[in-house]
């Protein structure tokens, strides 16, 4: 019959009209400013630098300015300047630290490749999306101080990932201590040998190029 398709269509729209009053599946609007949508844990938007504790952010920065992320970032929006001197990091080893670590958030596309390639878990993805500013230049160029956020914040936004990272770091720290203890024990075991044997160079700063295989959670 000529009009049957049209009537069927009208029936569908009527069902949706009535459904929108009682069936939550047919009323999908989230009224943004009042009701904030619950973000999934894996949501990523703009990176941030992880610091061990909140009290002294610049002191306990995990980043060692190895500039891997600067090279690997597709739109080249990270700018790092190494420090001349060294400073002990979380587990006591002397590390270089970045004097300047600037990310231009007008260029960054939150693709999280920097997080993937960072061997020191120093940079992670944040979940901020309300960061509109009126200035085109300075406000979008986040320097080291604005980027640094404590590890607790990392646990807040990415709980599972943060737990895995901490577990892995703790395991590395324990392995580093055993190696140091073993080296100390070995040195103590042969004090009688004359000293002229050339002293093994102190543990050179682990070359940053040894990439850890990206853990399943990275």
């Amino acid at each position: 019959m000529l009009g049957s398709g049209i009537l069927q269509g009208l029936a569908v729209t009527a069902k949706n009209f009535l459904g929108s009053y009682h069936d939550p599946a047919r009323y999908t609007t989230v009224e943004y400013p009042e009701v904030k949508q619950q973000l999934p844990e894996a949501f990523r938007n703009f990176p941030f630098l992880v610091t061990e504790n909140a009290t002294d952010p610049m002191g306990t920065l995990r980043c060692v300015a190895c500039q891997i992320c600067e090279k690997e970032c597709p739109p080249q929006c990270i700018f790092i300047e190494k420090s001349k001197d060294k400073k002990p990091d979380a587990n006591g080893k002397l590390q270089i630290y970045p004097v300047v670590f600037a990310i231009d958030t007008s260029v960054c596309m939150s693709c999280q490749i920097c997080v993937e390639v960072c061997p020191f878990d120093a940079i992670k993805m944040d979940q901020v999306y309300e960061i509109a500013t009126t200035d085109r230049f300075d406000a979008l160029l986040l320097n080291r101080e604005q980027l640094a956020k404590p590890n607790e914040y990392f646990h807040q936004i990415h709980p599972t990932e943060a737990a895995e990272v901490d577990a892995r770091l703790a395991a590395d720290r324990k392995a580093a201590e055993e190696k140091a203890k073993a080296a100390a024990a070995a040195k103590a075991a042969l004090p009688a040998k004359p000293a002229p044997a050339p002293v093994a160079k102190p543990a050179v700063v682990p070359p940053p190029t040894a990439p850890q295989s990206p853990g399943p959670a990275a």
Partner: protein
Amino acid sequence: MIATLPPAESWLERFPLLVRDWITGHLPESLGWLAVSLLAIVVILAAFGLLFAYLTLAERKILGRIQNRPGPNRTGWFGLLQPFADGIKAVTKEDVVPREADAVLHFLAPVLLVAMSLLGLAVIPFGRHLLAANLEAGVLYFFAAGAATELAVFMAGWASHNKYSLLAAMRALAQLISYELPLLLSVVPVVMLAGSLSTTHIVDAQGGWTFGWIPHWHVLTPWGFAGFVMFMIAALAESNRSPFDLPEAESELIAGHLTEYSGFKYALFFMAEYFGMCGLSAMAVTLFLGGWQAPCAFLEFIPSYVWFTAKLLTLLLGFIWIRATLPRLRMDQLTRLAWKFLVPLTLLNLANAAFWSLSAGWSGPMHWVRWAIALTVVVGPFLLLGRALTAGVAPRTYRYA
């Protein structure tokens, strides 16, 4: 005006008359007719102005709800101030007139369109005593007032001096002219059966109920229902609404003949469209749905103007519902639908109404024969012409590799 007041009127029914007499009481007798007509004009403008305002809001909210979203709810409580916000926006927006545009025609088009669509409301009986102008040829007056809309649309399209507006003006004319015919032809049976061109007579002809609850509305007769459906289809086309909103089809010619309009003139065009829609729906209610007649005898206590408003609102919601569902017809399909489908069917409907009035006297078994004949004359040609119209068009089955 109305000679005598029927005695068994509830005071609610006569309430508008009391108000009118109270107001005209203050003025000297000689200015009486002027005061009454001015009052009628003010009431109609106020009522239909508010109806237009809240019709735009209702349209956006219903469209929203159908599309699983709330519709405007930010301005005022549940978005009730949205029409006034739109109004202020329309007024404050700059009214850009293109340099080569024909300023006189460019200005005159929306004004003419709104004036013509408002004029038509004068003859519609909103209630037992609510009638602005009781003309003997009320229906003819309504369509005479509506005839100038084509002129206004052409002026809008031509004055904008713009390629798109010119094309759209031509389309609009073709559409309005080809749908004027079925619109008028579907009204002729009603005038023939009611025996008069005056709207009050037509509404009175639909009074009374059989078995107390089946009203004598024209829509409940076979020819009346067919006439009503065709009148509504033609009304959709006349007011450029959903399946026929070709002139300002966004997907093709931007805003059609409205491209060069902005600010309040643009709002005027929409006001004219909505008044046209209200006018045609009001006429449909008067002609087919028994105007202000109550559907059943025991519901008579509810005042007549309430019934009229209820029917008018259901028709308008039908317009919005159709707009939310149906896609747009192409230009040639639209005119083919008018000339090859609606015009023949309305002519047949005329013959059917003639048979219906001649066979009024049949009673007993002949009563059912009369209904059977009338129904076949409605349904038969509809199916035949329908098959001819949708010759090459059918749902298809698909093979799989």
